[in-house]
């Protein structure tokens, strides 16, 4: 039944042909490899190619990192108050690396921590972190249509929001399976909203039981549903799993997580629920008014959720 639900307006995973995480390890110094170990060294050098002279197919004219530079900051880069002169190309390359890093990290749907970005990608460029991140965010949005957004104010972690609305037909053209779990997630989000923005865990399982999903039984599509809902969706920040105080045995409740608030809206979720029941959103006047109020609040720029990465 879940497969017949309309596609939720949530970001599908993105497979990126980009350089990956362990590429951005601390770069080694540029040792000249011996001919015997050349192949071996090439593999490792390639992994840190971004820090060394890349051999691009465009035949970039001699771009070299300053000799002896390493990301450990052994040259005391922090002592330099200003950005020492870097070529346009070096900056561009760094931004390119950052864009790819963000795309890959977002694929897993775990929010990208600012600390990880600093550690893995920016190395010597720490003092112009914000400028580089801003440039990367601009490129991500202009080229791919993904907006880099801070998860919550001051959270220092980011996610990518798709500025394009997914359509049902997209599924035919995807090379991956998309996320089969989004149907389940969307149903839960719907339940939470309809029940007043918070719902006890026991109620969620009562609801899911009717769909053939049980907390203690492996599911052919969702695997371990309990783990999926209480851990995976929570880690991805789609849901908040909160302990209800003064309960013994401990009980939990679910609410929308910060990612959900950024990626979708009460109105969209209400429309989804209405469609499932073959009714009109206005058939639930309380929720409809609440959804409208949220839309109006978002339209006012000062109270707009999300936005460009804030400065430290």
């Amino acid at each position: 039944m879940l497969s017949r639900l309309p596609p939720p307006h949530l970001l599908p995973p993105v497979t990126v042909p980009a350089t990956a995480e362990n590429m951005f390890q601390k770069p080694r110094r540029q040792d000249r490899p011996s001919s015997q170990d050349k192949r071996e060294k090439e593999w490792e050098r390639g992994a840190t190619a971004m820090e060394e002279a890349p051999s691009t197919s465009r035949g970039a004219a001699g771009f070299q990192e300053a000799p002896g530079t390493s990301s450990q900051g052994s040259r005391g880069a922090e002592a330099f108050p200003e950005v020492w002169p870097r070529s346009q190309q070096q900056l561009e390359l760094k931004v390119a690396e950052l864009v790819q890093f963000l795309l890959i990290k977002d694929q897993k749907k775990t929010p990208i921590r600012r600390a990880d970005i600093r550690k893995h990608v920016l190395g010597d460029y720490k003092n112009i972190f914000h400028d580089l991140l801003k440039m990367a965010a601009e490129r991500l949005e202009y080229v791919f249509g993904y907006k880099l957004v801070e998860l919550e104010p001051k959270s220092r972690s980011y996610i990518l929001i798709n500025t394009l609305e997914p359509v049902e037909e997209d599924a035919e053209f995807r090379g991956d399976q998309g996320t089969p779990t989004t149907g389940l997630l969307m149903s839960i989000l719907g339940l939470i909203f309809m029940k007043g923005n918070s719902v006890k865990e026991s109620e969620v399982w009562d609801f899911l039981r009717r769909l053939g999903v049980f907390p203690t039984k492996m599911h052919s599509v969702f695997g371990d549903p309990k783990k999926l809902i209480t851990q995976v969706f929570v880690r991805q920040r789609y849901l908040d799993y909160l302990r209800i105080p003064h309960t013994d045995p401990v009980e939990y409740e679910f609410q929308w997580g910060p990612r959900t608030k950024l990626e979708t809206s009460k109105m969209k979720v209400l429309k989804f629920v209405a469609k499932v029941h073959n009714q009109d959103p206005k058939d639930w006047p309380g929720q409809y008014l609440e959804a409208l109020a949220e839309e109006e609040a978002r339209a006012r720029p000062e109270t707009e959720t999300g936005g460009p990465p804030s400065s430290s």
Partner: protein
Amino acid sequence: MEEGRAERRRRTEAPRCTQGGARRAGVMTDVHRRFLQLLMTHGVLEEQAVRHLQKHCYNVHDCTAAVEDLEDFINNINSVLESLYIEIKKGATEDDGRPVYALVNLATTSVSKMSSDFAENELDLFRKALDLIIDSETGFASSTNILNLVDQLKGKKMRKKEAEQVLQKFVQDKWLIEKEGEFTLHSRAILEMEQYIRETYPDAVKICNICHSLLIQGQSCETCGIRMHLPCVAKYFRSSPEPRCPHCNDYWPHEIPEVFNPDKEQEAGTSKLNKKPLRSRQH
């Protein structure tokens, strides 16, 4: 959610970020963006499917505009991708010359692209397979020979049974192709790693005499040793009654394959899977 006009305008105009000298980048619209997003979900995609994808993106965003010629469409996107050191690269399958496209990284020359999906020892297994494939005469490495190297892998110890599964994963993710228990590179791997392979194996690497690109599978002249891709052979000797080596002029001893014809395939309604596999190892 209604998007402000100013925001929409900002997104369609070229941003004020670092762009080199006199590079004239094209303009991205939502059609291009959706195309890129969906293309990125494929490691490599056949031209027919790419055309359908393009059409789909036009349908979603702008039904009335005429669908731009695919090559121009892709060149436009590539001019924008240039500053990010990636491009949509066109290639052809080595066995039957189907045109394919992949989004590749320009600034790096290693297999690091794979490393987000595979563990250290799995990547090392791929390296070993690649060594054998490049060194081989036919462009194929046998499963046995690859598995025999399992003890030499870096990282966590891997048993042969595990390694078999990892090899299957490489096939699923389109890094390798398997034929009769032997492995060769998928067109995806060739497109993404050509430069890396040329630099890493400067002596062992084989090049096609016709198109001068990396060659893994192909035919070779028995007299002078030059090699050609099967689709390059097909095009070069097309309607040639007496095929002769372009280098030494000796009689070309191999069966000449047919040039890939996309229209023919649509009419017959045959899929790649139904086609009888072309015998590609003719050395």
